[in-house]
């Protein structure tokens, strides 16, 4: 054989999720710098987009006047209480649907029917049921968190390795042990990724609920700013929401790394 030698061309690689630090931050920074530069040079008019440094200044005022916490604390309370109620009920019902065929047959169509309802449309109903105060806001956020959590949870329970359950039965484990030590931990990855979505929905609903009837809260603050076309304040509010979203996602990421350390 006297054929010329050629290196075998590489065609593997890619399709693997790798952890890269700082890239996400860099994207934010570049976009902000671009907006700052554009508004300063007049490339982007002040009416189209507020200058990031002005938004920052507004945010500083908000902080100094003490109004920031006056808005933030009720919002966070609503978010935490509502999402906690919705997520825990959702996980519980999802596990029941996953475990019992009768519950599944009865409730899956119902869940499918209420899933697509924009929950905000039901706010008047919640106001009648729970009053104009906090309870109706909790209910709205809880309801909105509940449905996606149920769907994610029962899908996660369905995905638990049946051979592990059979193993538990073959060792005579009690029903409670099988559920608590095999089904729930096995469903945890799916439940957590479901929570990522439902908690984001909770933030959206929080704002919607506060826009419809609240004196304080980030939603109310954004609504006030919006009706005055005060873009700096509007954006200051929006930034708070974004930060909230990033925080929620980060917290779930930490929990995932803690709880799911066993995953390959």
């Amino acid at each position, binding site marked *: 054989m006297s054929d010329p030698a050629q290196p075998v061309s590489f065609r593997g690689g890619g399709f693997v999720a790798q952890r890269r630090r700082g890239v996400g931050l860099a994207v934010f920074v570049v976009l902000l710098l671009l907006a700052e530069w554009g508004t300063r040079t007049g490339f982007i008019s002040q009416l189209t987009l507020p200058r990031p440094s002005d938004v920052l200044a507004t945010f500083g005022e908000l902080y100094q006047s003490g109004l920031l916490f006056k808005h933030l604390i009720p919002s966070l309370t609503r978010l935490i209480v509502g999402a906690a109620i919705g997520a825990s009920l959702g996980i519980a019902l999802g596990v029941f649907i996953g475990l019992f065929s009768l519950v599944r047959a009865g409730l899956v169509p119902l869940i499918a029917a209420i899933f697509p309802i924009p929950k905000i449309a039901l706010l008047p109903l919640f106001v009648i049921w729970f009053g104009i105060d906090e309870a109706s806001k909790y209910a709205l956020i809880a309801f909105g968190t509940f449905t996606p959590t149920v769907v994610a949870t029962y899908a996660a329970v369905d995905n638990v390795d049946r*051979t*592990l359950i*059979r*193993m*538990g*039965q*073959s*060792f*005579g*484990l*009690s029903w409670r*042990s099988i559920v608590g*030590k*095999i089904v729930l*931990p*096995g469903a945890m990855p799916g439940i957590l990724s479901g929570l990522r979505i439902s908690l984001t929905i909770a933030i959206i609903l929080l704002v919607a609920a506060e826009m419809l009837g609240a004196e304080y809260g980030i939603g109310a603050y954004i609504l006030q700013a919006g009706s005055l076309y005060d873009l700096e304040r509007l954006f200051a509010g929006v930034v708070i929401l974004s930060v909230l979203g990033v925080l929620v996602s980060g917290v779930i990421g930490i929990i995932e790394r803690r709880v*799911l350390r*066993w*995953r*390959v």
Partner: protein
Amino acid sequence: MDLRLQNVSHSYGDTEVLRGIDLEVPSGQIVCIVGPSGCGKSTLLRMLGGLERPASGDILQLGEPPADCLNPLTFIFQDFALLPWRSVRGNVELVLEDHGLPRAKRDAIIDDVLARTKLTEFGAALPKQLSGGMKQRVAIARALAVNPAVMLMDEPLSALDSQTRELLMDDLIALWTRQPFTAVYVTHNLAEAVRLGHKIVVLSRRPGQIREVVELTTPLAERQYGDAGLEAQQQHLWGLMRDEAAAADAELINV
């Protein structure tokens, strides 16, 4: 404690998988069940362990299991069935937690079975860190922890490479020699059957019926890798199974 199957038959829908099985599993012996794929040998094992009900016939437990036995009929699975979120110790502990044993007693059992399966140093490791052979040793340790009257092994070595399989077979023989246990061992590997079986039950293809029961008298400890006598037995078994296996292979699966 012995096990007895009386005229056991089973079918999934229209597919008859087992027909008229009569079998005795005597105490202190390893009974191997071999047969072509799809002959119902795993179904038979699940019935022995109470994970499935036969359509007809009886599965009987003769005599009482020993008093300190926590789970008389204990499985070892082909795919190990270890909880990936629990350490080696945790996986063994899982099957002891429901029995209300005092902490010290539980720890003593775990230490003992990990030592018997040579896993003492790996107690804190997670399953994903272990090789296939080690995973199956953890599963064996877990089975030993409940002190079973009968071990039901469903192709325990089939997911392992052949070198690991040899090593684990030696381990199983050593375990049995130290303290004879009763086992039903389902496999499609005839070499495993002649190394480990006191009694080898050959099933025909679907519907599974007993074609022949071969008794081997050579003590387990004296059976070596590549032994001529075992080789002859293996040839004999292969003669019984060859045509069945070929026919089973050509069948369409519609279960």
